[in-house]
Structures are given as structure tokens and as C-alpha cells.
């Protein structure tokens, strides 16, 4: 097929399958979420480290 072996084609398409296979379900799961603890407001985070507002 296209002059290449099946192994070569598998290596060429594997990055597409692996990359999109991981990131598309991740995107679908989290696309509607609101921002979390920091939310772009450094110093306002709910610190659990005992040194808030660095």
C-alpha cells in the first residue's frame, strides 16, 4: 500500500492514533468545567501548605 510495508504505515499513523486517542476523551470530559483554585488570582488560592499568599 503506497509502496510502504504495513509496519511502516503503522509507525506513521501510530502518533495520530495515540495522541488523539488520549487527548480527545480528555477534552470531552473537561471542556465545560469552570476554573479551579487559583483561577488567575495569585494569592487568593485556598492554600493547604501553611504559607498562603506568597
Amino acid at each position: 500500500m503506497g509502496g510502504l510495508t504495513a509496519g511502516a504505515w503503522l509507525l506513521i499513523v501510530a502518533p495520530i492514533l495515540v495522541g488523539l486517542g488520549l487527548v480527545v476523551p480528555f477534552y470531552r470530559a473537561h471542556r465545560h468545567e469552570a476554573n479551579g483554585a487559583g483561577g488567575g488570582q495569585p494569592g487568593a488560592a485556598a492554600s493547604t501548605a501553611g504559607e498562603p499568599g506568597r
Partner: protein
Amino acid sequence: MTGSAVVLGVVIGYLAVLFGIGLWARKESRTVSGYYVAGKKLPSWVIAFSSNATGESAWLLLGLTGMGYAVGVHAFWVVLGEVLGVALAWVFVARPFKEYTDRYDSITVSDFLEDRFHDGARIIRRVSAVIIFSMVAVYTAAQFTAAGKAFDSFLGIDYTWGVILGAIVVLYYTTVGGFKAVAYSDLLQGVLMFLALLVLPVVGIVAVGGWGAMVEGLRAADPSLLLPMGSFGLTTAGVVSAVSFAAVGLAFLGVPQLLTRFISARGTREMAPAGLIAVICILVFDTGAVLVGMSGRVLFPGLADPETVMPLMSSSLVPAFFTGIFLVVVLAAIMSTVDSLLILASSAVVRDVVQKIHRPQMPELRVTTWGKVVTVFLGVAGVLVALGEVRVVFWFVLFAWSGLASAFVPVVLCALFWRRTTLAGAIAGMVCGFAASVGWVLLFKARFHELYEMIPGIGVGIMATVVVSLLTRPPADADREFDAVHRAIGPAFRPAPGGRGGGGSAG
């Protein structure tokens, strides 16, 4: 107007835009948080392109294209490794790391590690600073060298002036505009790289006569160029080569210059769209680069230096204006990496050591002023090294990439995903991982089929972190923090509790 004048005009226009970005972003650079993480306000598309443009230096455009030229389909192991590394980083690392760093109000990776392990003696901060500073110096010098070579090969401008010109522009917008200028210039540079690596392989394959003609041309040149395991075949050397190529992508899981992009995001919700953009972007970057090399092998057989194939193709196959664009793209890849490295090393010295250890009361404005001074100092040092005899660009790039990854990836992954990790374990992992990476190059690499040093580096780093952690006590409250972070963000493939990206159930 001659071809060279057109190319030069395009380059000058590009450099002028970078100066403009530096001026536009300068207001943000007056506070420590603004100078080092753009006030944690960056949207998904900026952090996505910025992380990829930072991760992919001149190595992508000159090194990976050269690899496609030299080994053909076998170079797709690099593509697989990098795409996997980028995808895993966004899916599994970005959200917990962002959640932790927002809770701790961290500005640097060292801030995060110090708070995660309650390191009152600030040992991990000092160790990080030494490793970052030494590796960034090597990495920056190599990138300036690449800038000099690019000006030389595209425009015939003297190597020395090429290095100096590249350095002046990067230092200007980095010191004036801080991380905001760095991130937005990375966005511009990332988009240019994306478009170039979408177009140039098509131009190359069409010039050869189509996909079938390229494959037949490669087969005629050397049939092993079409085999997944290359000329090695399915042998120990072939497997080591494939694994080494793929391992280049492991660094995306935890090198500090990329983790800083997660910190600078305006929230955890940015990670989902950013991850999707980043993976599509890296697919185009890497696949395009390898295909440029493969088509170049048929068009320009017998090149003494395969890493000149991309400049050669762009100066031979397209009009002068587009040759200028492709030179800009090479410069973009270099600058987008150098600016991030300079600001990272500056933060490692000024924020992590001077402000946090020696001068906690220093006013913000003075801290940022010192940050800019250190940025310039590092840039000048990089130029001086580049003007010396450092001409083997990509050996240094891969060495520094591996050194940073071996020191930070094991510790960051254990800190995020193994609650039992201790301060002593983290320090041992960082030191042993880094030492293993350097030691492998000096003592063992040649005897083990050139196995890439990042593999033993990360392996030893993880082992040292785990063993020493099991022998010592984890910090008090680490369990509670760990549970709070992971409860807030939820699993990677299911929506977070309450539809929030994090922080919904802190404590």
C-alpha cells in the same frame, strides 16, 4: 529587488513585530508574578503554542528534518515519542500540577517542590537552581549557535553577526516584556512553525512528483529508509535506536520550562482545550519535519550535512519571499526556546535563591530588576560561548534536554502521583537522575548502542526517589493535600466533581 533583499526585508519585519510584543507586554513585567508567569492569566491557545514552541527548538527544523533525511521512516519513532509525551503531559500532569501550584501560589517549579515537601531548609531550591542554571547555559549557547548558522546559510550574513543579532532581539523583548512577551511571541512563533511544517512537506512531496515517487526515490536510494527499524532491522541496536528516539518525548512530562506554562495558565479549565491544541500542533510539527527530510533525500541526494536540508529546500523550491518566511521560522524556533530558557534560569537565580533564601524582604520592583539583569547576563554568556567553538548544536541540545528531564521528571511525577514521596527521596531522585544522565554520556553510552541518556537518567531518578522515600518519613499533612488536590480535579477522563476544574473541595 534581489532575492536576498526580499528575505532580509521579511526578517526585519518579523524582528520589528517581536520588538512590538516586548513593548506591549512591558506593564506586566513589573511584578515578580508578572515577570515570571504573566500573572497566571494566559488562555489555553497561548499556553498550548507556547509550550510546543518552547519544547521544540531549532532541533525540530534542522535536526529532525536531518533525521528524516538520514534514516527515513525510522525517524517516526521520534514523532511517536513526542506526541505521546505531550499528550500524557496535558492529560495527566497539567491539571494536578496547576491545582497544586495555585493552592501553594507557586511561581516556579522550585516553589512547588519546596511546599509539596515542606522543605524548610530550602535544599531542593538550591539543587534545582544549580541544575537549571548549568543546563540552560549549555542549551542557550547551542541555540545562539543555531541562530548564527541560520543567518549564515540563508542570507550569507557572517556567523558572528548572526549570533549577536539573534541575541539582541531575544534579550530586548524578554527583559522588557517578561513572561507575557515570551508567551505571546512563542504563540506567533509557534503558529509560523505550524504553517511552515504544514506547507513545506507538501511542497517537497509535490516537487518530487508525489507520494509514490518519493517512496520509490527513497527505495532506490536505500531500501532501509522505508523500514520502521531502519538499517538496523529487528536487532538489539535497532530496538535501542527506536527506544532512544521515542524517549526524547519523555521530557515533556516534567521539564521546568514546560511546567511553567501550566503555572501561567489562568485556570485548570484551560488544560482541556490547550491539550487538544498542543497535540494537534506537535503532530503537524514532527510529522512535517520528518516528511521534509524524506522528500529532501530524494530531491537533494548526497548532502554532506543532512541538517542543511530544510534551508536548502526552502531556498530552492519557493520564491524569495517564502524563503524569508522559512528563515523567520527557523529563527522563531530558536528564539521561542531561548527566551523561555533565559527567563527560567533568571527565575532559578533571582526568585528561587536571592528572593526566597537570602532577601525575602526585597521589594518586588527590585526583584524584577535583578531578574532582568540576570537575564541579560545569561544571554551575553550564551553569546560568548556560541562565539567560541561550540558548533555541534544538537548534541548539546539533546544533552541539556536530557539533563533537565532526568532531574525533574522523576521528582515531579512522584510528587504528583505518589503520596508517599518524601523530601529526602525527591532530593535523591533529582541528584541521582541528573548524575546518571551525565554519567551515562561520559562512561557508558558508546558501549550500549548509543542508548539515549534520558532513559537511564529518568530510570535512576525514579528508583532513587522511591527507595529513599521508603526509608524516610513523608511530610506531615502531605496526605491531606494530596487527597484534596486529586479530589478537586477528579479523574482525567471524567468531569471533575461539581463541574469545576479544581479547588471545589479543598482541604
